[in-house]
């Protein structure tokens, strides 16, 4: 091995602690890039392949009841390639060996042919062949321990019927499966049932008709015009508004995840690479300064500028290689954890949750580039240093009298304090970047603790302030108000309140949005909507309350008027005034007064949902009774929703908080440790001189520790500001039509972030301080610099 390369390896070994501190920060960037970008690609590719293979529809619609003869007209819409009509409906399922009921969404399978679109994949058993057979989605079967041959009882159109499970399937329509009214997937209590069409049609009285249709389009046709044409065709038959893939529930959850991964891949890694580049620049700058005479020597020996430049770039390259190694290992592990998390939420038939090799290559290339850019200035300086000058000791850094010096003199500061302040002001760029690094660490801690605070707020708002009912009973169609009295007589029911649900399109000028509208009785106590201040709100007659994000999307504020085109009820279009905005973290809701709506539709008072509170001891009796109620299509047990939400969130938050904390500590250590090491190296003579002059170890340590901690302290306000920006960005990035996070930053969050980072900074600088004790005073004074 050439001697110059041996020098490289020995230098690298000597610098291992500093190299490691930088490599760890770089590794964060590599790992996050690998995980976020790799997973984003994997998820996107997996989904595309799945959709392609199983012919996932491009446009979807449902209607109350449309004749099959309409299908020809639908097929004639320009650009439509295939049409698949189905009959669907929800049913309460009586689960064998369990008191708690479940809700099944029943989908018809075409007779005598395979489905053209949304083709289910058989995972076990076979598809149903007789009217009393069903295939169920795999996760539902797994969660409930079903095997082909097991029997469940379904309340179909008011009649209880035993259904034999013949097989388990997966479907591109249900990558993410969430039941009506639920906030999180719960595979125990919500399942998809595929049944022969004749059986479903008979159960829901849909002979010769359909209520659900999917279309596929050719690649050149945009969905917009097809959606409009389909709406026009379905309108007379109670069309509920057609929508494209982007609004399909399962797909939009996958979309939300992909968007989050992509924004994570775009935002976080550059921060880490930026810090790494700065650290490399700082350390390489110092190394080149220290090796000044060696550089001169190499030149005197006949090494070219390019060879010398390369020598120092390779040193940075070795740091990058270390970082890449750690980053790849951590990233591969993180990707595996992520894949397990996805396996829990998303149901794909095949797993391409493998980070592609080229993503590894890209992350390594970026890391190498980062280190090279960081080292470039120093390497070029080494290359361009005139040899004759390099052989001479460097000129002492120039200090000048500034206003600060006069202020320091006036303040009669001690000499060590003056040394600290001069050093900070003499290298303002370095000081600023050190502070910036520490500030980023503060921001990272804030981001981590923010998540758990925000989710606490979400849980409190969603489950303890807004949705206070123990269960929701969902009816197949609107019932007279008197149905509430029947509900009140069910075993265990203590309180009952009714609501009516409708589907509508809200329009304001060019903005429009399809949303569910909830019509409520004033003073409802079990299901409340809250203002931003947390006060319960009721919509006055003629008014409508909008979820904050919905109002923002439609560019509406209280006092404005909005056009409401109902897709259910009397399907009329009305104008309502926006009477307020509602703080809401799940979905985009709109709320009106129940009596006002009934008046508008000219109908007797009706409800479609009953909210109840329950006596816990009679739950089993209640479930038994529910399974026998003919018009009931669904129940949501809020206690299980709360539990599954809490469990899932808790687990994710613990992981995320841990990851962010670790990241913050790594950044702090990287910045503070390297800063202190460089300082010690620059000041070894100075500090040794102080010791020789009779300063104590503590006094000398003060100079070293003081500068780093001063910069760390100065970084705090910036860190808080950055933390706020980051959390705001996260709130924006996280926000979709499906859910939103509140921006919760309390004093404790700021304090905690500062304490964690200051402690990490102090720890790192104290590690360096130990070297002061080992300082050989005589040797240091002899070293020529």
């Amino acid at each position, binding site marked *: 091995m050439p*001697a110059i390369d*041996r020098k490289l390896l020995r230098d690298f070994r000597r610098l291992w602690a500093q190299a490691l501190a930088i490599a760890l920060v770089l590794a964060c960037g590599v790992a996050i890039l690998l995980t976020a970008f790799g997973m984003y690609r994997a998820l996107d590719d997996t989904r595309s392949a799945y959709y392609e293979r199983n012919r996932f529809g491009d446009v979807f619609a449902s209607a109350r009841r449309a004749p099959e003869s309409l299908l020809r007209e639908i097929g004639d819409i320009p650009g439509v390639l295939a049409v698949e009509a189905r009959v669907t409906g929800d049913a309460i399922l009586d689960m064998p060996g369990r008191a708690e009921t479940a809700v099944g969404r029943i989908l018809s399978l075409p007779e005598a042919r395979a489905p053209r679109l949304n083709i289910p994949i058989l995972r076990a058993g076979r598809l149903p062949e007789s009217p009393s057979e069903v295939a169920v989605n795999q996760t539902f079967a797994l969660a409930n321990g079903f095997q082909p041959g097991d029997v469940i009882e379904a309340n179909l159109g008011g009649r209880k019927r035993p259904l034999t499970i013949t097989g388990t399937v997966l479907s591109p329509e249900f990558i993410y499966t969430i039941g009506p009214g639920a906030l999180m997937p719960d595979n125990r209590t919500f399942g998809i049932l595929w049944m022969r069409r004749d059986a479903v049609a008979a159960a829901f009285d849909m002979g010769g008709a359909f209520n659900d249709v999917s279309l596929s389009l050719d690649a050149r046709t945009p969905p917009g015009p097809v959606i409009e044409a389909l709406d026009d065709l379905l309108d007379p038959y109670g069309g509920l508004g057609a929508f494209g893939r982007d609004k399909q529930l399962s797909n939009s959850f996958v979309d939300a995840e992909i968007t989050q991964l992509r924004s994570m891949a775009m935002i976080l890694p550059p921060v880490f690479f930026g810090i790494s580049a700065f650290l490399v620049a700082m350390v390489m700058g110092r190394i080149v300064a220290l090796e000044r005479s060696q550089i*001169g020597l190499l030149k005197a*020996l006949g090494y070219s500028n390019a060879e010398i430049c390369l020598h120092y770039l390779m040193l940075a390259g070795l740091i990058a290689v270390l970082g890449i190694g750690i980053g790849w290992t951590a990233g591969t592990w993180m990707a595996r954890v992520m894949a397990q998390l996805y396996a829990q939420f998303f149901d794909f038939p095949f797993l391409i949750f493998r980070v592609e090799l080229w993503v590894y290559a890209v992350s390594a290339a970026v890391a190498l580039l980062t280190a090279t850019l960081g080292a470039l200035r120093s390497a070029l300086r080494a290359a361009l240093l005139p*040899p*004759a000058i390099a052989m001479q000791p460097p000129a002492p850094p120039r200090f000048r009298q500034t206003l600060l010096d006069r202020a320091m003199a006036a303040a009669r500061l001690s000499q060590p304090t003056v040394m600290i302040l001069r050093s900070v002001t003499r290298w303002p760029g370095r000081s600023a970047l050190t502070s910036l690094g520490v500030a980023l660490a503060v921001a990272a801690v804030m981001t981590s603790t923010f998540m758990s605070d925000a989710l606490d707020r979400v849980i409190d708002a969603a489950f303890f302030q807004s949705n206070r009912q123990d269960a929701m009973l969902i009816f197949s169609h609107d019932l007279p108000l008197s149905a509430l009295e029947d509900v009140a007589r069910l075993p265990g029911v203590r309180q009952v309140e009714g609501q009516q649900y409708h589907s509508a399109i809200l329009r304001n000028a060019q903005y429009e949005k399809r949303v569910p509208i909830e019509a409520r009785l004033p003073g409802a106590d079990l299901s409340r909507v809250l203002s931003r201040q947390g006060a319960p709100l009721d919509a006055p007659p003629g008014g409508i309350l909008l979820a904050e994000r919905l109002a923002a999307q439609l560019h509406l504020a209280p006092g404005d008027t909005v056009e409401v085109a109902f897709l259910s009820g009397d399907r009329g279009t009305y104008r309502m005034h926006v009477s307020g905005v509602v703080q809401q973290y799940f979905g985009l809701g709109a709320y009106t007064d129940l009596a006002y709506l009934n008046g508008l539709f000219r109908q007797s008072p009706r409800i479609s949902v009953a909210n109840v509170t329950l006596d816990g001891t009679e739950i089993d009796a209640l479930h038994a009774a529910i399974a026998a109620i003919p018009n009931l299509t669904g129940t949501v047990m809020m206690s299980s929703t709360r539990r599954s939400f809490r469990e899932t969130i808790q687990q994710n938050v613990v992981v995320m908080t841990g990851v962010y904390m670790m990241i913050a500590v790594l950044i702090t250590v990287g910045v503070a440790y390297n800063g202190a090491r460089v300082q010690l190296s620059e000041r070894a003579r100075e500090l040794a001189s102080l010791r020789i002059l009779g300063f104590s170890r503590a006094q000398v340590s003060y100079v070293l520790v003081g500068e780093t901690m001063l910069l760390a302290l100065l970084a705090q306000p910036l860190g808080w500001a950055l933390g706020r920006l980051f959390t705001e960005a996260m709130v924006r990035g996280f926000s979709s039509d499906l859910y939103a996070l509140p921006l919760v930053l309390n004093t404790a969050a700021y304090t905690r972030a500062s304490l964690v980072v200051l402690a990490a900074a102090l720890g790192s600088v104290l590690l360096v301080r130990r070297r002061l004790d080992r300082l050989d005073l005589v040797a240091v004074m002899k070293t*020529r610099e």
Partner: protein
Amino acid sequence: MTARRDTVFRTRDVGKVYETGGGQVHALSGVNLDLYAGEFAVLLGPSGSGKSTLLNILGGLDRATSGRVWFRETELTGMNDRGLTRYRRDHVGFVFQFYNLVPSLTARENVQLVTDVARDPMPPDEALALVGLGPRADHFPSEMSGGEQQRVAIARAIAKRPEILLCDEPTGALDSQTGIQVLEALREINDRFGTTTVVITHNAEIRKMAHRVIRFQDGSIGEVTENATRIAPSEIAW
């Protein structure tokens, strides 16, 4: 030495001006000097008299501000950076006052730094043997005395079989005994390989071992004397 000597270096009206914060410093002005093949020349003079500046210019480490410098038929003053690097690599060996060894490399590896890039080098161990350090080849600089370190530096300088050896205060950091060892090594190289050797020193006694002595004063050459007889390094009174 005869009158018709083979000239290695020629300088004509060489000047060097440094810009400093406080103004210009004239390190060299109007230096005319010829150095001959195989000679052992000593440059004498007080600090700041311009000796090192001239040595650096001859060695291709620095450029003259004015005037011209030739190495044999090649003009150094017109050369670009790449040319000077090539020139140093192929022709010049340097020895410095503070040895300038790479601390992370052993004696052999320090020599190898040169043999890795030179055209026709001798094996590193041979170079070390020439300065009497064969047994110390695997030691790091921190494990050697100042004299040993300087001899490693000499081994490193001669390993490429240079035509010229430029030594800036090679004994400046050494005591008399080790200083003499170093001078003996230089004399040995000069005698054995006919390497043109230029030595800068503060120590006027060292002049007695030279063929020629060139005295510097305030950036120019004051006086050039030839020694009729040379003494051995061991005879030098330190």
